[in-house]
């Protein structure tokens, strides 16, 4: 084959990258399909799901509550400062609650849990791959995707909305601490306006976001761990790219979810 002229080289490079990207997206899609499909088939490993819910859900509780409390407090502080300029401090309650329920609750919960549990997931599965434990599972006729990925995906979908709801409640309480206790807004104004302005659609939309993020984070992290490269370096790289890709997809996905849901 004749060597390509220099101009064609760039085009070929572009084409190659596009093909690689498409193939990777396809592999990820097949992995997701397999994980969800195997969920429906027996054996149902309930203890494995329980352990993942303990790790992803209950284990992340303290960090999620801490993040939620301070997010709510800073929203109260900043919101009060801004609203005061328009003489409408009374709207602090709805400002805090709507920011939390519609945006910050689902997004920050997902980011924090991706950093805490997602990275551990990718590293755990990655080490099982490089130490040939996954091959051992396969040789014992245990489907590794069903055993490793499926319970984690289900645990993510189940726990993320619950963590998000706790984040919202604690955040609203944080806003109350700053707005009412510190800055002297009346507690009736704070909660009354909140009840008048927050609607069921806001809460449902926020929960739907949490569901999507739960699936997204566990899917990406399991996939990255499952397809990690060779040796310790491969596991490290898989863990990093799992967290980075989850975080990016959470933020990008959030924009599109918001434009579709609300």
């Amino acid at each position: 084959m004749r060597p390509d002229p220099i101009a064609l080289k760039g085009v070929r490079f572009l084409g190659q990258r596009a093909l690689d990207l498409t193939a990777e997206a396809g592999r990820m899609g097949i992995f997701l399909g397999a994980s969800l499909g195997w969920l429906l088939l027996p054996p149902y490993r309930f203890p494995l799901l329980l352990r993942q819910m303990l790790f992803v859900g209950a284990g992340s509780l303290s960090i999620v509550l801490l993040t939620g409390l301070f997010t709510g407090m800073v929203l109260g502080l900043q919101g009060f400062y801004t609203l005061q300029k328009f003489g409408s401090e009374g709207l602090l309650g709805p400002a805090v609650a709507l920011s939390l329920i519609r945006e910050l609750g689902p997004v920050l919960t997902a980011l924090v849990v991706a950093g805490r549990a997602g990275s551990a997931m990718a590293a755990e599965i990655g080490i099982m791959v490089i130490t040939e434990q996954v091959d051992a599972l396969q040789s014992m006729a245990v489907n590794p995707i069903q055993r490793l990925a499926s319970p984690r995906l289900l645990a993510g979908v189940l726990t993320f909305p619950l963590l998000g709801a706790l984040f919202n409640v604690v955040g609203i309480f944080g806003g109350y601490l700053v707005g009412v206790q510190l800055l002297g807004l009346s507690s009736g104004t704070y909660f009354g306006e909140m009840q008048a302005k927050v609607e069921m659609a806001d809460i449902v939309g926020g929960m739907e976001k949490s569901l999507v993020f739960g699936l997204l984070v566990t899917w990406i992290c399991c996939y990255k761990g499952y397809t990690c490269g060779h040796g310790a370096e491969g596991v490290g790289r898989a863990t990093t790219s799992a967290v980075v890709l989850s975080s990016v997809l959470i933020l990008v996905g959030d924009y599109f979810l918001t434009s579709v849901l609300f």
Partner: protein
Amino acid sequence: MSQRGMELTVGVFVLAGLAALAYLSIRLGGLDLFETGTYEVTARFSSAAGLREGATVEVAGVRVGRVKTIGLEQNEALVTLRLKSSVKLSQDTIASIRTKGILGDKYISISLGGSPRPIPAGGRIRETEPPVDIEKLIGQFIYGKVK
């Protein structure tokens, strides 16, 4: 951790999460799971401009219920109100759509009448006042039609 301890921890976590969700939905979202102690009446307004479902219903400034649905009936707005059953409306009650402040939310204010006969559940408030159209008022003021 033992299986028992694990189950217990996850159980507590799930309960706490569900409690948070329930708090959000019921306290803030206005989700009425048990609509006990309430009843519905309807009222027909010539216009319900700016009124939204879920808006509050007040008697003498006290919240006694909310707007359940807004629909059309004979080219007029038919509004269904869900009220606490402790509130008894008499036949000559007047329902009017008002605005909180100048630019605030629309709500329904109910002035109780003096008739001894009450409006039953599912009944209708006959006397209604549509919201004041501020833009129209300003227009009339500019063209000097307000006396």
